């Protein structure tokens, strides 16, 4: 087992290295920007996977955390001096706000059926959307606002996009390994047991509520951090960060990539972001591509029914099956021999 974990870690690190090298090979702006979006949504989708894949909690308001993060850092940097300290302060506010909202939602509904968390988060997210639209003195309403991000030291300022790229990439890698560690820890094992059979875990004497709430909070904090990065990458925030589309993106990325795999959502984020990019170019060809939600929605529905394990999950399963078959063959050989 130990051997295997290390092997996959090496593979992930190798991929990370490739991603580190990319900006030095191909530094076209749109391409770097696309990859930055993939890293950000990869983080966001992983936070979603932590809920859906590892705990069996469905959130329909994940955009809320994303938006909270984006607005927290945006408002902090706009109101205070755009210094590095304000940036850290913005992250702190984002984490606090995201965590508190997730705590409230979790405490209120996680002892009930999964419907309730889904409904409550959906409703809360729409509340935040309305709040962002109406509280114009703070958010500038639908117009949104631009803000400055901290100046980098001399020499790096010219390569700002590359720095943002590296920062987002590094964040994604750290969060990936952090969450993987978490899901493989004893806590993660309990969570997966909860997802499989809640009653049994409860009858073993575990109170499942606190575990679920903890995960809800971690997921909320990570998601709002993704929102922080998003705002930083655009240097602009508007109400679209609270839109249901953002939640739908997270759902799609997680489900297409593979629920409960962590690396799947990152792959999903890559696919969806590329699809966004090319579909918006196609909208000149035919107007139907402007209604890409329909396409995504249909793909998503079909995926839920026919492709429930996603890309990574399906691959893992076929590997596991092959391995099992191999073991059976060797076993029967041994018996025969």
């Amino acid at each position, binding site marked *: 087992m130990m051997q295997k974990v290390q092997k996959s870690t090496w593979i992930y690190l190798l991929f990370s290295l490739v991603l580190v090298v990319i900006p030095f090979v191909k530094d076209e702006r749109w391409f770097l920007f696309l990859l930055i979006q993939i890293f950000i949504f990869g983080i966001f989708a992983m936070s979603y996977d932590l809920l859906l894949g590892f705990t069996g909690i469905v959130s329909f308001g994940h955009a809320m955390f994303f938006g909270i993060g984006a607005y927290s850092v945006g408002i902090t940097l706009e109101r205070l001096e755009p210094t590095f300290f304000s940036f850290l302060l913005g992250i702190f506010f984002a984490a606090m706000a995201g965590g508190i909202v997730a705590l409230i939602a979790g405490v209120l509904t996680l002892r009930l059926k999964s419907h309730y968390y889904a409904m409550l988060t959906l409703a809360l997210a729409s509340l935040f959307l309305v709040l962002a639209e109406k509280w114009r003195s703070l958010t500038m309403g639908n117009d949104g606002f631009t803000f400055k991000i901290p100046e980098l030291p001399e020499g790096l300022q010219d390569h700002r996009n590359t720095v943002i790229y590296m920062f987002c990439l590094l964040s994604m890698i750290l969060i990936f390994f952090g969450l993987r560690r978490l899901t493989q820890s004893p806590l993660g094992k309990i969570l997966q047991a909860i997802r499989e059979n809640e009653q049994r875990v409860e009858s073993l004497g575990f109170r499942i509520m606190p575990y679920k709430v903890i995960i809800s909070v971690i997921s909320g904090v990570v998601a709002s951090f993704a929102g922080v990065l998003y705002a930083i990458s655009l240097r602009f925030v508007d109400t679209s960060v609270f839109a249901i589309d953002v939640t739908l993106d997270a759902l799609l990325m997680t489900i297409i990539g593979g629920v409960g795999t962590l690396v799947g959502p990152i792959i999903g984020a890559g696919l969806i972001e590329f699809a966004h990019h090319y579909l918006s170019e196609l909208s000149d060809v035919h107007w139907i591509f402007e209604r890409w939600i329909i396409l995504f929605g249909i793909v998503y*529905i079909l995926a839920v029914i026919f492709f429930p394990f996603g890309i990574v999950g399906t691959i893992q399963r076929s590997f596991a099956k092959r391995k099992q078959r191999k073991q059976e063959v060797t076993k029967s050989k041994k018996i025969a021999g």
Partner: protein
Amino acid sequence: MELIINLAINGISTGMLIFLIAAGLTLIFGLMDVLNFAHGGIFAWGAYAGVWFFSLTQSFLLSILAAVVTGLLIGLVTEYLIIRPVYGNHIQQILITLGFMLVLSEMLKVVFGPDIKAAETPSYLSGSWTIGDVTIIKYRAFIIAVGFLVFIAMQLILKHSKIGLIVRAGVMDREMIQALGVNIRKVFVGVFMVGSALAALGGALFAPSSGVVYAEMGMEFGIFAFIVVIIGGMGSIPGSLIAALLVGISNVFMAYYLPILSMAVTMLIMFVVLIFKPQGLFSTSGVSNK
């Protein structure tokens, strides 16, 4: 005082519209243990169908009928394509119906165009009555009357007809009702269609009162309906009525006095209910919320 009466009437009519959506939602949930996140989308389709048929025929009655038929048909298709593959799996149900909700909303834009559409009130229902200083908008009174009639009809059917008995028994014990010789699947399809038709009826009635229809209304009112179902207790029709009226009235009053908090007050009611009575004000004994 007149203001309060006017606001109250306004609130009750808003509440009745929400009740129509919530009633279908809670009925479907109670019997089938399916939470349909696409329910609001059917509401929006009812609204568009009503507006479109009204512009075509100039008959309000026909437009309502068209909306109801639209609701029945979408209900049939939804049950068959979307719900049937995921019976018994809550997480998949929630995921798939939300996806369908978005498809329904976007399809509205494809079929009817992405812009907001104006909705007319039929001439015999426009205008108002004035009693002393109180002005009663006719259409609002009409909505209240229809909502109330629907409530009474549902109660009578559920309480006294054989099919109502079967539906109620099915909510309590799905297995036993089959062992008594009832094909509950068929009943499910019927209930799903009726629930969807109620949402579509709500949509068709909503359109003239707001004056416009738009694709996002489905999500907006769908959320209201969820909140109402949580407050009223999942599976309870009277609970939905009381909760819908509560939400409608408090929303209208807040929108008048403190507009920025109108959505928040609804949430606040829901929070209080979730903290103190998480199974809702009127939970039915047969439905567990765990």
